[in-house]
């Protein structure tokens, strides 16, 4: 598992976060939740996580704003934390390109299943 163990899941849709979490926990990961963007930023700044899974369409603060807050000039940067966007929102080319400087991945939820997410995370280094 190459040292990657703790995950913060920032996602407003409970059935979806529970679905992924179940599989992640069965595979030995420790998962915390945040149900909106603001809560996500707060939790990310309180504790170190190896990985943040980040939805885009959320109340309070969108995933894009969370990313700016965590990785932008005024943010803490969290250099040891990987951030993967996990969304069903199909960003256009320009927006995706812009995200590349700050995010470590962009995954369309509907294209993967929980077991594939575990596989992808297992391959991160």
């Amino acid at each position, binding site marked *: 598992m190459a040292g990657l163990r703790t995950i913060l899941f920032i996602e407003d*849709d409970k*059935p*979806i976060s529970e*679905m*992924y979490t*179940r*599989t992640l926990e*069965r595979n030995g990961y420790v998962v915390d939740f945040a149900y909106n963007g603001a809560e996500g930023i707060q939790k990310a700044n309180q504790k170190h996580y190896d990985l943040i899974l980040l939805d885009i369409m959320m109340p309070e603060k969108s995933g894009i704003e969370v990313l700016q807050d965590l990785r932008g000039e005024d943010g803490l940067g969290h250099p040891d934390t990987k951030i*993967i966007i996990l969304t*069903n*929102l*199909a960003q*256009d*080319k320009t927006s*995706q390109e812009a995200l*590349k400087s700050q995010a*470590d*991945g*962009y*995954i*369309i*939820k*509907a*294209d*993967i*299943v*929980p*077991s*594939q997410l575990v596989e*992808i995370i297992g*391959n*991160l*280094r």
Partner: protein
Amino acid sequence: MQSTRFKRQTLALFFIVSLVPALVVAAIWYVDTQLGDTNSLIVDIHSFILPVFLIGVVPALLLSFAFAELLARPVRRLHAAVQRLAQGNYQKLDIPNSSGEFGEIAVALDQVATQLSQTISAAASETALIESERNKLRGVLNSMTDGVFALDRDGRIILFNKAASELTGRSIAEVAGQLAEKVMPFRQGGELVMTRWLATEAGPDQKIGHWRNLELYRANGESLYVDVQAILLPQDPNGISALVTFHDLTKTQQLEEMKIDFVALAAHELRTPLTEVKGYLDLLAHEATRLSKADREFLNRAIDGANQLGELMNNLLNVARIEHGELNYHPGHLDYLDFIQENSRVYELLVTGKDRQFELKIPANLPTITADDSGLREVISNLILNAIAHTAPQTGKVTLQVKRHRDEIETSVIDNGTGIPSSAIPHLFTKFYRVEEMKAATRGTGLGLYISRSIIEAHGGHIWAESEEGKGSTFTFRIPVRALVTQANVTDNTTKITRGAHGWIKNNPLH
């Protein structure tokens, strides 16, 4: 018949009337010869005058009146009938008790009236028909979304439909009788192409002219872009010399865009429930321990269905993006031989997993090209999945062949399957096209080849199909070694961003 009766009656009347004075004269003569005395005669005559008058003159007068009345009544009736006729009442005259000559006149008059009435009702129904046709035509013209107007011999507007009025922002009253080149100046590069054509082509023959994307100023000064069709009508009896229709392109484009937005939105909104369907099926597949063989089969079918649905949505979204010109391409330097060898393992598993034979034919070396690897991966996957679908297990064979063709790299997917009817080949790469004969056998969306074509064309390449029914098909694409994209847009693949069809992970292979 009537005529004879009339004669008999008349003769009888004359006879009676002329008999009365004769009887009077005869009576006076008789009295005179009997008495002989003048005085007494005078007295007697005086005493005779009253009875004679009563017996002779009164009936004569009465009879005359009766006779006159007998003559006058049919004349009056005829007169009334003619007057009714004159007033436009052409119904059957119905002249009662007419006999003799008057009867004949009445009958003749009646026939005239009937004929008139028939002629007039025929004309009336014709007028009604013309009126209803005119209303229909007016309805059609005004319900059309295309603008329509007609010109007279001098090039002045004599007809202008509702759409023409709405599109140009000019009222019918405003344009009626105006020269078309003044109020409807369709321009192409500043030239009045349509009106000039009308003037130069005018002749004895009917002619049709088409123009695409002409500019027309609306009343408020805005530009309108339209397709125009004009018909020259030299022989038109109504004095129309030309009929012009024009189609608003802005509206078409807006509609097209709305449709695309809807598709993109639908694909996006449908993904969320699909995520749960696929995700929980995956949990079930991994966690359920006491599933029977049949249960497991049902579960697998549900997973297959959900995956197909996901693919369909992504294809629809891709089509929407293609039409928006927004398909995400990230061209980079690509070692094509490496790329093919790496991916061929996945293709081989795909093909052999379906009990078909797989063969890879590649040259010893190939140049590095500028291309979007995930785009090309999608195209080759599409072609291989098609080849699998159209071959039979065990006997089926799919070959992936790559070779250099001058300044292009040529990639072919060859199968020994059912082949494609030659009539279908020209349509294969169009949107939603599915070969009729193959619909039952395959479950495609009719989008894969359309998307493939778009990807290859974005690389400056081309794609085509060759096939012989019963022997198999070959799908080939060529892309130039020197790609058309500028160097500035090229990302260096050494940063190793691995992109899946719909996502990417830095420094990590997604597939």
